[in-house]
């Protein structure tokens, strides 16, 4: 099977056949944040590759290699926009090739909203150095100084002589050259594609059923596998009877997988696999298995009792992670104090395409896999460890991802396919059912948070305590991890932007009982829910308008550094000088989104507006929701306004679509999302018991504004989610006077 390729629709229709001979040369590459390294190509090549991201063919097509995974965020459109722009390549003459997992590309982990914010410069360098290499080739051919030549519209031009040559015609001349390691970037004024809403590059494939996802891969002689896993996380198979399973028509084999490891990592989760000639036979055979389980150490996990323990822990005492002033003294001196406990449940990412992968063992003892993975290099690592082979012998093809939201960062499902392929001696496709996905994933943390504020006589907040308690994602990698730790505190907890003289941020321990993982915006989801809800509470306690109060609490424009208050804060891997916590920019977002929503206008009876703002992944998003409660007690979300300051943006329409999607994703969290456990097992199983927002609940409109900015890019895929649920909860309070402090709202009888 070929790598996932894209050619523009026009090219597709124009060309009669695939132009072969494209040769992507291997290049040295030093590190994830390094620069594309040069390597001379040989003369007479059909193509020339200035770096690992670009290959210019002599038929004039510029191949752009996309080393990031497409899961709906639009990176397969935005990445070539950047490279083609810096190259001055024509959009209609590029062909997009999806990269294999390979360290030569640097960081491929499509996670943390990093593709643009961490790699904008890298991609510009890739385009600019390719451009300069072609210019140098033309200059040498024409015997003129390179400085007199320029690239424009897929060709190099020399103004003095009027000479010009298309990129494809320069392949031979460029073949003996080394690409420079640095080149000047174009000025913003000269951008052709950056900042423009280019159509989604896969739009034709998406609308015609031709897009290939992990679940769609088919290999000759392939078996289809369905796996029954222990209901409780970490449990093991005691014994099993596969007699009836083997009797199902189409079933070829039944294979027990290795028990789960400790730490669980991204390894296979154990269980028993049924392998068959089609998916249905595998699923039917699986249903016929008789398995005795040992539910293991987590077999007694039960959500109601666990909630009580979390809330007790959150309201008892904590470990200080940030201390500004003296909150206890502030509370003692306060005119009034106000406190609250916020609770949010486990969530499942539930991408529409469940985890699915195909693997085969190659003739040389290596492994080749096709998967909807966010992180093909982690897949190489995990498959290598699973099979006991070098990761260099693991080839991972990245298909399109039918949604991911963090779930597909974990290559456990690919490891299952690889391990089964080795046992079966044939290629194997593993397809998770929806129930598998919802019951056996890597879960978003359940959390309890305690917040307490003190006020002076004028209603100004003088002290704030925020204590967060949740089982840590670190438990996936370290079984002794207990409670929030490391990067989790950076996600909406330590980066509190409010101008309060006394601030204490604490954590409280919680032991994990399910596989923990990240979900779109991670801990920012529950931290923003609690903090933005509590800040709204403070406005009402103080008798102030929530928007005005929010602006007052943000204080005068300034840059916040949590280290000033003793916190270890990593700012998503970037220095604060480059990506500050800038309360002026946050306030500007609050003003813009509230103005768009007509804050303060007369509303229909029973309607309310709620506002929330949150900075995450180096971008700021403000949300306003307009809600009402209908006569049946059902919450209706009429409109949502979303304003994002993400610095420089590449494709405004893809940013807009991410804000629209974040509004719906946030609504699902607010209204519906809840995973619970009983006897160690997840209770929910499909979209009936784990509902998500449907068309009938979607707002009338989602109004999006992108702040004009020349600042360096921030993240986009995740930052829209955190403010949505608190905006809805705050709007519900405005509409009804009732405060909600737990999610989902359906537990409050509102859906």
């Amino acid at each position, binding site marked *: 099977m070929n790598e996932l390729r894209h050619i523009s629709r026009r090219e597709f229709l124009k060309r009669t056949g695939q132009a072969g001979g494209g040769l992507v040369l291997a290049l040295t590459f030093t590190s994830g944040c390094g620069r594309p390294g040069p390597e001379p190509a040989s003369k007479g090549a059909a193509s020339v590759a200035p770096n690992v991201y670009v290959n210019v063919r002599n038929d004039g097509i510029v191949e752009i290699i996309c080393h990031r995974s497409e*899961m*709906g965020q*639009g990176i397969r459109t935005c990445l070539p926009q950047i490279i083609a722009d810096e190259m001055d390549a024509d959009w209609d003459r590029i062909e997009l090739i999806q990269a294999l997992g390979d360290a030569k590309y640097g960081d491929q982990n499509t996670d943390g909203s990093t593709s643009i914010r961490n790699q904008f410069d890298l991609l510009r360098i890739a385009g600019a150095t390719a451009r300069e290499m072609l210019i140098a080739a033309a200059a040498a051919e024409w015997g003129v100084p390179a400085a007199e030549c320029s690239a424009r519209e897929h060709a190099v031009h020399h103004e003095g002589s009027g000479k010009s040559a298309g990129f494809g015609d320069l392949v031979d001349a460029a073949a003996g050259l080394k690409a420079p390691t640095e080149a000047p970037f174009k000025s913003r004024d000269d951008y052709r594609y950056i900042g423009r*809403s280019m*159509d*989604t590059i896969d*739009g*034709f*494939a*998406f*609308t*015609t*059923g*031709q*897009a*290939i*996802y992990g*679940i*769609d891969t*088919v290999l000759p002689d392939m078996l289809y596998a369905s796996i029954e896993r222990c209901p409780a996380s970490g449990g093991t198979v005691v014994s099993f009877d596969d007699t009836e399973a083997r009797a199902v*028509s*189409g079933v070829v084999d039944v294979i027990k997988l290795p028990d789960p490891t400790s730490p669980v990592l991204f390894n296979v989760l154990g269980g028993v696999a049924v392998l068959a000639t*089609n*998916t*249905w*036979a595998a699923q039917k055979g699986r249903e016929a298995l008789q398995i005795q389980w040992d539910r293991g150490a987590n077999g007694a996990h039960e959500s109601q009792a666990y909630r009580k323990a979390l809330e007790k822990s959150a309201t008892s005492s904590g470990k200080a992670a940030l201390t500004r002033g003296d909150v206890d003294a502030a509370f003692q001196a306060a005119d009034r104090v106000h406190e609250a406990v916020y609770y949010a449940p486990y969530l499942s990412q*539930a*991408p*529409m*395409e*469940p985890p699915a992968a195909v693997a085969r063992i190659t003739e040389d003892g290596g492994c080749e896999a096709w998967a909807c993975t966010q992180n093909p290099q982690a897949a190489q690592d995990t498959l290598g460890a699973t099979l006991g082979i070098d990761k260099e012998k693991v080839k991972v093809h990245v298909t*399109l*991802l*039918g*949604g*991911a*939201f963090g779930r597909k960062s974990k290559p456990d499902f690919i490891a299952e396919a690889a391990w089964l392929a080795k046992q079966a001696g044939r290629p194997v496709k593993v397809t998770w*059912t*929806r129930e598998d996905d919802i019951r056996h994933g890597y879960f978003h943390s359940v959390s309890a948070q305690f917040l307490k504020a003190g006020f002076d006589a004028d209603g100004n907040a003088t002290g704030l305590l925020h204590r967060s308690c949740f089982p840590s994602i670190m438990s996936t990698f370290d079984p002794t991890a207990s409670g929030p730790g490391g990067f989790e505190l950076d996600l909406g907890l330590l980066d509190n932007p409010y101008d309060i003289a006394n601030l204490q941020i604490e954590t409280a321990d919680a032991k994990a009982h399910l596989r923990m993982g990240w979900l779109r915006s991670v801990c920012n989801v529950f931290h923003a829910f609690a903090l933005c809800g509590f800040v709204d509470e403070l406005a009402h306690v103080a008798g102030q308008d929530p928007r005005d109060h929010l602006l007052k609490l943000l204080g005068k424009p300034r840059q916040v550094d949590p280290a000033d208050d003793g916190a270890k804060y990593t700012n998503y891997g970037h220095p604060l000088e480059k990506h500050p916590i800038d309360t002026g920019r946050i306030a500007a977002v609050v003003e813009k989104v509230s103005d768009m929503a007509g804050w303060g206008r007369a509303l229909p009876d029973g309607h309310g507006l709620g506002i929330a703002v949150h900075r995450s992944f180096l971008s700021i998003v403000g949300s306003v929701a307009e809600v009402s409660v209908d006569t049946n007690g059902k919450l209706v979300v009429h409109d949502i306004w979303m304003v994002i300051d993400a610095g420089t943006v590449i494709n405004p*329409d893809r940013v807009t*679509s*991410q804000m*629209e*999607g*974040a509004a*719906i*994703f946030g609504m699902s969290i607010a209204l519906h999302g809840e995973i619970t456990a009983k006897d160690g097992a997840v209770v929910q199983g*499909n*979209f*009936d018991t784990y509902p*998500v*927002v*449907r*068309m*009938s609940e*979607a*707002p*009338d*409109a*989602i109004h999006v504004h992108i702040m004009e900015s020349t600042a360096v890019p921030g993240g986009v895929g995740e930052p829209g989610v955190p403010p949505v649920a608190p905006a809805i909860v705050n709007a519900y309070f405005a509409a009804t006077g009732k405060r909600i402090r737990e999610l989902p709202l359906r537990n409050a009888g509102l859906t």
Partner: protein
Amino acid sequence: MAIELTINGQAVSLDVEPDMPLLWAIRDLAGLTGTKFGCGKALCGACNVHLDGQVMRSCAIPVSAAAGRKVTTIEGLAADGNHPVQVAWRELNVAQCGYCQSGQIMSAVALLERNPNPSDDDIDAAMSGNICRCGTYTRIRQAIHKAAEDRS
């Protein structure tokens, strides 16, 4: 056993267990992967196809029920991929990950066949069986209105 049916205008004979859901017969046996698996329980609409012109959830009907009937999948909607609904979807860049969009488009086409000028409420009623986890609902509404306008 052999089940005879027509898929996208082509007569096919599938050697298949009669209780196999039409979805898996289409995907694993007929080799058409545009129709997607999302839930297996008739809850999400990712697997929607047309059976004799009616939109159906292919994960919830046995292949035997399609015997002698005409199945249309996303691949068979228009030979050139330019059904007005597909065109409208592209013009509004509806898709994010794209996975659910085959089923969304099959539902939208069926809606417009029976109601050429649907209101927002009509759209909500017809499309609420299709889940999009990326959250493209507001664009789907717009694209259906646009396709309705373009057809009229």
